[in-house]
């Protein structure tokens, strides 16, 4: 029997796989049957309802699904992985640095905060131009800007580190 912890937004669900066709979700038992139509499309039968789902595997723990027009990003961990993750997060909190990464490829138009500036969660940090639109990259943590690796008028790749808050 394997237990999984599934996080969607800030909610956590516990899922036990009881057998090939039975699962237990937050304590309730369901009959399930899965059928894969193509690399990205599945049919999932839960009890007597069939759901059409498109799925993308983002990593070993992260999936993105669309079900009847509703979009979900999920994180799924085994019990052990969940505990390891909690431990790592607590450690990060102690050292307390947050690295802001570029959410998309684009051009740095303006850097709004400098090293030493105080920032609150949600404060705009950097203006990034992509697809002819200016996008604000906002702070995901409060603190003091520790370093800025982005340069104005230079292009960046998705996932590139731009700024560090501590």
């Amino acid at each position, binding site marked *: 029997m394997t237990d999984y912890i599934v996080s969607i*937004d800030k909610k956590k669900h516990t899922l036990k796989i009881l057998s090939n066709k039975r699962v237990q979700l937050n304590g309730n038992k369901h009959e399930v049957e899965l059928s894969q139509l193509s690399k990205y*499309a599945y049919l999932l039968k839960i009890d007597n309802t069939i759901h059409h789902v498109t799925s993308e595997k983002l990593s070993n723990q992260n999936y993105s699904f669309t079900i009847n027009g509703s979009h*979900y990003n999920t994180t799924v961990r085994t019990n052990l992985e969940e505990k390891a993750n909690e431990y790592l997060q607590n450690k990060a909190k102690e050292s307390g640095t947050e690295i802001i990464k570029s959410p998309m490829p684009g051009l740095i138009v303006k850097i709004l905060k400098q090293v030493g500036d105080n920032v609150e969660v949600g404060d705009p940090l950097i203006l990034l131009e992509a697809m002819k639109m200016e996008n604000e990259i906002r702070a995901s943590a409060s603190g003091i800007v520790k370093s800025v690796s982005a340069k104005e008028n230079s292009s960046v790749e998705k996932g590139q580190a731009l700024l560090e808050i501590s």
Partner: protein
Amino acid sequence: MIKKILIANRGEIAVRIAKACKEMGITSVAVYSDADKSSLHVRVVDEAYHIGSSVAAESYLDGDKIITLAKIISADAIHPGYGFLSENSNFIKKCEEANIIFIGPSSKSVEMMGNKTTARTIMKKNNVPIVPGTTEGIKSYEDAEKISKEVGLPIMLKAASGGGGKGMRRIDKIEDLKAAISSAQNEARKAFGDDTIYIEKFVENPKHIEVQILADKHGNYIHLFERDCSIQRRHQKVVEEAPAPTLTKELRAQVTTAALNAAKACNYYNAGTIEFLYDQNENFYFLEMNTRLQVEHPVTEAITGIDLVKEQIKIAQGDVLNVQQDDLNIMGHSIECRVYAEDVDSNFAPSTGKILHHRLPSGPGIRVDRGIDILSEISVYYDPMLSKVIAHGQDREEAIARMNRALEEYQIAGVTTNIHSFQWILNHPDFADGTFDNNFLDREFLPLLPGEWKNELDDKYENVATILSALLKDRDSKTKPFKRECKPENRWGKENYEPS
């Protein structure tokens, strides 16, 4: 007769135009940039030509290159779609000189409507109501102060050659006027090479109502009723519908008459749209005229049965309009949702990538105009609009129900889309009763970012996402205790249902 059309555009509108060409027996030609090699518009035409790099200035905006190509391949007409070269009067002039039919208005009409102060002057002369303010640029500060006090604060400063919010300022206090004028002038000079600034009264929470017209080269003008495009975020239209849900017959007559006057005032031919602001006291004010096909033209096609692209082509080749005003009736109601590759919860950041999978909605009253296909690349170079879903019903309720159903059916994998967020819009009470205005999304939706808007929706599928996450991870794990077969030939109900 036009025999071959070069489509100087990309994405869904290029595909839309190619479909009209096919139906009319006209050879369609696509042009494409490096980034668009795998785009749908290249796949659906009769001929396709690579014209340059991914940067629009070196491909879709390079008018000379496009005209030269049209001559080499003996295209007799160019359809500009919307955006890019569609409202560029210099380009139209060059087409006129090269003896290539531009499927649109004359360069003169575009020039008249391109400059805002000129357009305001013409409209005022021709009984089209304009927002109170000046029809000329500000000459001196004293002048500006006097006019601001006359029309009453708040006012807007706008650039005569403007667009896209540049050179625009809202003034609430007269003390701010002086500094705002000089900063608006600076911005306008940099953006448009023209620092003419004029004054308009600020219209509080208006609706965006626009009228579709058709006019031929023989002086015949008809209107195809109005659209309500007030569902916008930061001046970007998201949902459009026809007819406008709250408009009475009398107001409809008033606004469509004003629109026809506006088109006549600039000797217009082609399909065109006259945009109005509609304020809380039932006043219409001319905003601008778009001298081209609009993104939202399908809702008008749905309620009138007229194919606007075919009409554009027929008008361009000199045909007389064969539709009379009295032939037209509003048939039911239609709504369009623009599907963008964007992550709503990351402040609408565009999402790039490859379309890995898609399944189109279908069934009664549903149309999808799309620019994407399997393995299309969504790049940073162009507008992130993937497709438009258009629903048509006997009445507004049916159109909304069909739209909700279609968006549930629509599957796109590979990029993040805004499809989920339409559930919030379509089910909001202000949308249901039609009382929304241009600031509705900015006021009601933006404060719910990131993610909180989802809390206002029924969440029927979180359990499905949860179960599937675990099943997929379990399938891929090396230590799984259960063998999980999930081949397509899986069939439900190996155990038949038997009443117990």
